[in-house]
């Protein structure tokens, strides 16, 4: 067996500190709450490692396709959706009636169209999506820290306005599993995903005369070395994210989501600064009100986000790439601020980000996930134009 450290020099200090931090948080959660919270935190860490090592971002993948018709990123996402369709649909179709889980279903209307469109622009300006922002922050990218801060501000502002947006026209939620039954819905969805897969391959071949392989990887290290130190080929990322998302569904009882926590963190900060958050309609009833009253560690979405960030820190340290050198110019700063605000505001209006609404929505057979895909992609096209105007590339 070849050496597992052949091409990588891990950042030992950060690796040790992060490992200790993960263990301490897990022990504290076990003491304060229950094993479920520990498990969700560790799943989050696993997601962070997978996202970082596979560089599994939606933003770059979509930009590469829009600009150059390079489709590897999009194909990896389609593979992820397909695996989760196969895993989620039977469970959501209640083949095990005793297993009560909740898919991601949301009303299809103006709110989600506008929200995902704004989110799409924000992806390109901010330089990341929901998951992408978290794992790049974990990787130590300072510019993404700015994006995250304004993502939180935007999500909180969005929660202030959400009731108005929800008063706009909507046709309600549409679940293909309920509408067609889980088996026909699964077969149709797999067919649509396969058709999209073939289409993007053809578009890439037409433009570039060659098609990138999802299995390709710049590293020649052994499998075990790549597993620990990265980088992973995209298909490894798709499979690990699918498995961890499925475990999340089983453990948490709901699909993986990210951006609810950002709004919650913003609300808690506003509350701590003396703002009257409880007077806001969104935060005065239902789960948001409960989450506001309780410790942030009681919120499963927050817990998983903390896990993702720490997991990405660990992965970056193992890869020897934590906190890379960077230059933040004025245009990068402006775009991080505007992008972060659009990401947060858009995610709130769209019932989630690329994970909570797009990925979880499609994996749950909900029409709102597909609508998010279309309008979010259009937003990305506009966002790519804005990147050119701001000379971000």
């Amino acid at each position: 067996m070849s050496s597992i450290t052949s091409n990588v020099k891990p950042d030992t200090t950060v690796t040790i500190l992060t490992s200790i931090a993960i263990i301490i948080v897990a022990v504290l959660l076990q003491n304060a709450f229950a094993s479920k919270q520990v498990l969700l935190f560790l799943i989050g860490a696993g997601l962070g490692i997978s996202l970082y090592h596979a560089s599994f971002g939606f933003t770059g993948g979509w930009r590469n396709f829009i600009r150059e018709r390079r489709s590897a990123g999009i194909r990896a996402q389609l593979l992820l959706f397909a695996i989760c369709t196969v895993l989620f649909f039977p469970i959501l179709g209640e083949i095990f009636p005793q297993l009560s889980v909740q898919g991601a279903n949301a009303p299809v209307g103006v709110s989600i169209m506008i929200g995902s469109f704004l989110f799409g622009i924000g992806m390109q300006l901010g330089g990341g999506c929901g998951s992408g922002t978290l794992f790049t922050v974990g990787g130590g990218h300072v510019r993404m820290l700015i994006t995250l801060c304004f993502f939180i501000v935007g999500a909180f502002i969005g929660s202030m306005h959400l009731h108005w947006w929800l008063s706009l026209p909507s046709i309600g939620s549409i679940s293909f599993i309920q509408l067609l039954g889980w088996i026909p819905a699964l077969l149709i969805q797999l067919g649509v995903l396969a058709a999209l897969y073939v289409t993007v391959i053809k578009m890439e071949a037409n433009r570039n005369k060659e098609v990138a392989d999802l299995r390709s990887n710049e590293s020649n290290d052994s499998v075990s070395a790549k597993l620990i130190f990265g980088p992973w080929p995209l298909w490894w990322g798709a499979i690990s994210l699918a498995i961890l998302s499925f475990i999340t569904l089983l453990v948490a009882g709901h699909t993986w989501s990210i951006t609810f926590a950002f709004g919650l963190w913003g609300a808690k900060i506003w509350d701590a600064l003396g703002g009257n958050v409880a007077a806001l309609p969104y935060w005065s009833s239902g789960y948001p009100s409960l989450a506001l009253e309780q410790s942030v560690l009681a919120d499963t979405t927050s817990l998983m986000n903390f896990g993702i960030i720490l997991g990405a820190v660990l992965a970056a340290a193992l890869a020897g790439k934590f906190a890379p050198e960077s230059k933040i110019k004025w245009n990068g700063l402006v775009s991080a601020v505007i992008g972060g605000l659009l990401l947060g505001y858009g995610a709130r209006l769209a019932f989630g980000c690329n994970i909570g609404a797009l990925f979880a929505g499609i994996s749950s057979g909900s029409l709102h996930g597909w609508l998010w895909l279309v309008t979010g992609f259009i937003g990305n096209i506009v966002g790519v134009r804005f990147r050119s105007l701001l000379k971000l590339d």
Partner: protein
Amino acid sequence: MKQNQNRWIMGGAIGLATVAVALDHTRHKLPDPQPGDQAIHEQYVDEDMAPCGIGSGNPCGLDVGNPCGFDTSNPCGFDTGNPCGFDAGNPCGFE
């Protein structure tokens, strides 16, 4: 910015976030502990019967006994006023 500078910025940000989480955690109440065997039994029963997920903290499990299944008419749907539903951002399905 040089790598070392970035490391300090990231370390500072993570440290600040840790303090914020610790402050938040200490100023909010935790779910009431249930001492003794009865509590363990009740917890077991709750987890078994919890309609949506495994245990405490699950927003769909607030009302034990409510069906948090897939049906849109259930309390995890989006009826205004129900504890699990309507409000977007609810981890119980709307995000």
